[in-house]
């Protein structure tokens, strides 16, 4: 599994498509859809109180999946408790996924930095 993180609009999806050679039809924003690239995990986690069981099922089904998640913890603490809880959930899920990942890449201004493993 490859985990790609980075701020919004930093080029995560463009990098994933370029790296994998897959086309946009192979991208889903729902981990339950079983596609080889799952983008927008942070947004999906808005509606998931406990995202890890779904993600673990996906990893069992597709050990080579590419997961994309916005980094959302690098801002001012949100006023709304639900936003705070969501931000915490996304951060912890990314820590758990990074531990399981073969490769972790962070995109910054379109530029990839490998944090774990090798491309």
């Amino acid at each position: 599994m490859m985990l790609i993180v980075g701020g919004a609009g930093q080029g995560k999806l463009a990098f994933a498509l370029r790296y994998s050679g897959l086309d946009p039809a192979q991208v889903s924003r729902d981990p339950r859809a079983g596609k080889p690239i799952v983008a927008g995990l942070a947004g999906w986690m808005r509606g998931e109180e406990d995202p890890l069981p779904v993600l673990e099922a996906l990893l069992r089904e597709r050990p080579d999946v590419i997961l994309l998640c916005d980094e959302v913890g690098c801002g001012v603490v949100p006023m709304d408790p639900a936003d705070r809880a969501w931000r915490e959930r996304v951060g912890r899920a990314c820590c758990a996924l990074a531990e399981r990942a073969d490769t972790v890449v962070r995109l910054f201004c379109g530029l990839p930095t490998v944090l774990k493993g090798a491309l």
Partner: protein
Amino acid sequence: MLIFVSGGSGSGKSAFAEGLIVQSGLAERLYIATMAPFGAEGQARIARHRALRAGKGFTTCERLRDLEGIDVPPGCAALLEDLTNLFANEWFGTEEGDGDPDTAGEKVLRGLRRLREQAALTVVVGNDLFSDGMDYDGETLRYLRALAEVNRAAAAMADAVYEVVCGIPVRHKGDAQRGRGGERL
């Protein structure tokens, strides 16, 4: 030796910072807590941190303000968590007294210098609050800029600086494994 560890919310900073203290091999480990335990969410956050620290041999002391007045055992390993809370307490004040935005940053930095003089290893946890745009009111902007300045000063003072991303440390300066003279710690 001063190590500055920063990163976003939920990035795994604390676990990494605690690991640096444990790996130092220094027997006396002090956890300097800076957070006022407000509300159920604050209590839950503190409980989570306590569970994370359990069994790692830390003595906990609460220091919401006035770090420059602290006395720690000479030669200990000290973990200050975190710089943001300490700065907020000095800026906004606590139940014990009013804050002062004009002196908050300098007070925090004087405290860091004092801690570094006494402890053999000081690990300071900070936060990245600066990457969601600066679309805030004037007072919040002033606070954010002052906090960012404290973070930069702490990083400048530090022997090593790490940013933790998804639990993975990204080194920006120095090396936690080496002392000032390059010796293995």
